[in-house]
């Protein structure tokens, strides 16, 4: 696969990652608690920046870790069967997102184990310092792994096939794009926007976001399947 196509796949995977909402929900709760506890705007910004940084670092670590495993196990070119499994995973998770991403009813509750949700909610309330917010950011990415594993796996498979420098560029592109929504919410909070407006927008558009994320996963799955497996097979014929 050539470098532009590889980076395009990584970009689309990162956009899908960015459309997932768990970290945004935790950031909304964290800032709500911080403002409600009468913290200064500077402290609210420090806490929320700590959270966004934590989410960014864990995204970098997770993608690098998965890439390293693939590199050690498969080398620079993973077998076709691994690509096929990864494509199947993308399509499967895409369908699951269409049907199960949000819990029915009001609000933006997700289909994650309730114990996870309660822990994150309780921690967002208990977080008082930037290092705690940083570790909450790390944890929130881990809690979201069930959704983001598929785009990360396909990105890692693509990245290990690139030359060393482009691997770093690809990881950086993934991390920056996947953080776009969190950074947007952080900027909105910093510029004095009401949390209620942000949450209302998220609730009003949750089905669109769900459809977009699920649809993009399925499209990416088919694209990679055609790009990597079908083209290789027909090329061999």
């Amino acid at each position, binding site marked *: 696969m050539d470098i532009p196509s590889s980076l395009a796949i990584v970009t689309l995977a990162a956009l899908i990652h960015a459309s997932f909402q768990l970290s945004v929900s935790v950031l909304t709760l964290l800032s709500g608690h911080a*403002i*409600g506890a009468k913290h200064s705007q500077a402290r609210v910004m420090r806490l929320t920046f700590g959270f966004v940084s934590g989410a960014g670092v864990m995204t970098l670590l997770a993608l690098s870790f998965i890439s390293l495993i693939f590199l050690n196990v498969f080398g620079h070119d993973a077998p076709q069967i691994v690509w096929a499994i990864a494509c199947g995973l993308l399509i499967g998770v895409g369908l699951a997102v269409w049907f199960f991403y949000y819990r029915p*009813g*009001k609000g*933006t509750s997700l289909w994650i184990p309730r114990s996870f949700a309660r822990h*994150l909610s309780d921690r967002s309330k208990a977080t008082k310092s930037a290092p705690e917010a940083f570790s909450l950011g790390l944890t929130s990415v881990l809690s979201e792994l069930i959704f983001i594993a598929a785009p990360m796996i396909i990105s890692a498979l693509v990245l290990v096939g690139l030359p060393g420098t482009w691997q770093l560029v690809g990881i950086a592109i993934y991390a920056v794009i996947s953080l776009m929504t969190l950074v947007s919410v952080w900027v909105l909070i910093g510029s004095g926007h*009401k949390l209620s407006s942000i*949450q*209302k927008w998220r*609730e009003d558009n949750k089905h669109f976001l769900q459809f977009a994320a699920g649809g993009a996963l399925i499209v990416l799955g088919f694209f990679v399947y055609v790009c990597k497996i079908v083209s290789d097979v027909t090329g061999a014929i």
Partner: protein
Amino acid sequence: MADKDISIIKRKGQRPTEAFDRAKLHQSITAATLSARTPEGQADSIAYAVTNYVLEWLESRPEVTSHDIRLVATRHLRAHHPDAAYLYEQHRTTL
């Protein structure tokens, strides 16, 4: 208005029952109102009014769930500050 001895059933009985705590309710409503970027004094006044309303509603009820209290507080808070009521109501369904 003095606190009565009212039991609050938490999370459908998954957590131990607690005695009603007026200060805790006042604090949670103040926090939700402050989250909606309301000045401190106004947030305190709104929380005071809503807490009094919830206390009146509790007069004839020896045992209620935390969910009931949230519903009643939200209904009254909506009249004072719709944005704060929205945040207060959404708190449990954001994640």
